[in-house]
């Protein structure tokens, strides 16, 4: 079985902000990079973070959004956490960020999850949105 290749380091990826708390005063928050636990609406907890390879692809499945965070793939791969950005199977404009700790309130796991989320927020910035982007606020 062939491993899915990494997205090249010279690409950028985009995180659709589905929650208003994911950016504060124009700065991307760590909350944008925390995996979601199981909920009544989504019984399966998130195991990877969904990204777009374009701004539009990052928000095209969101009913509403609050902007888009832009990250360089090289910056993600250079973080000391073993993260990997790989193409989403059968979704040519999507990517998955793999290697984040699953949702947990156990101390060590939560330390890692928050630290990685804050490191990701430090290499992210809000991308300018086209006024014609779908559901642009």
């Amino acid at each position, binding site marked *: 079985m062939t491993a899915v290749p990494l997205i090249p380091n010279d690409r950028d990826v985009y995180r659709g902000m*589905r*929650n*208003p*708390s994911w950016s*504060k005063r124009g700065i991307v*928050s*760590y*909350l944008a990079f*925390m995996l*979601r*636990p199981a*909920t*009544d*609406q*989504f019984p399966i907890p998130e195991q990877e973070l969904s990204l777009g390879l374009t701004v539009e692809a990052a928000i095209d499945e969101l009913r509403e959004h609050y902007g888009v965070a832009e990250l360089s793939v090289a910056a993600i791969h250079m973080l*000391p956490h073993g993260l990997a950005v790989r193409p989403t199977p059968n979704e040519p404009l999507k990517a998955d960020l793999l290697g984040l700790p699953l*949702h947990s*309130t156990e*101390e*060590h796991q*939560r*330390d890692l999850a*928050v*630290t990685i989320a*804050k*490191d990701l927020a*430090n290499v992210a910035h809000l991308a300018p949105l086209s006024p014609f982007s779908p559901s642009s606020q």
Partner: protein
Amino acid sequence: MPQCIEDLTTASHRPSNLFLWQALMLVQAVGDAASSNGIGEQGEPKPSPATVKTAIDLIAEVTPFSLLGSPDIDLFYGELHLNWDKGAKQVLLMCFPDRDPLIHHYLHIPGAPSQHDIEVATPVRLAHWLRWLNA
């Protein structure tokens, strides 16, 4: 709620009215955020009253009140997060529905791995890390 803070204030560390007012505003903001309909995703559970009480009791016992400042208050799937941010340092208080609250402290170092750790939250330890934040 104001009575709680007043009761905890002794003559040896009585805050100025300004800091007491700020602490009261923070307690109010925590309660408002937890009951807000405008924060969080649809279907995202809100913090329980017990989780909110945990956060309020913790911050009400931090002395001096001047350490508290104005953190960002966020909800995260039934959790209540208060995040203090100053330059490269961040202190995050996380209150949960089903376990003791935690403090995560974080120092971003450009070009090097960030320094971080986590511990069970108490008013004394929160005050310690807020002093570190402002050092």
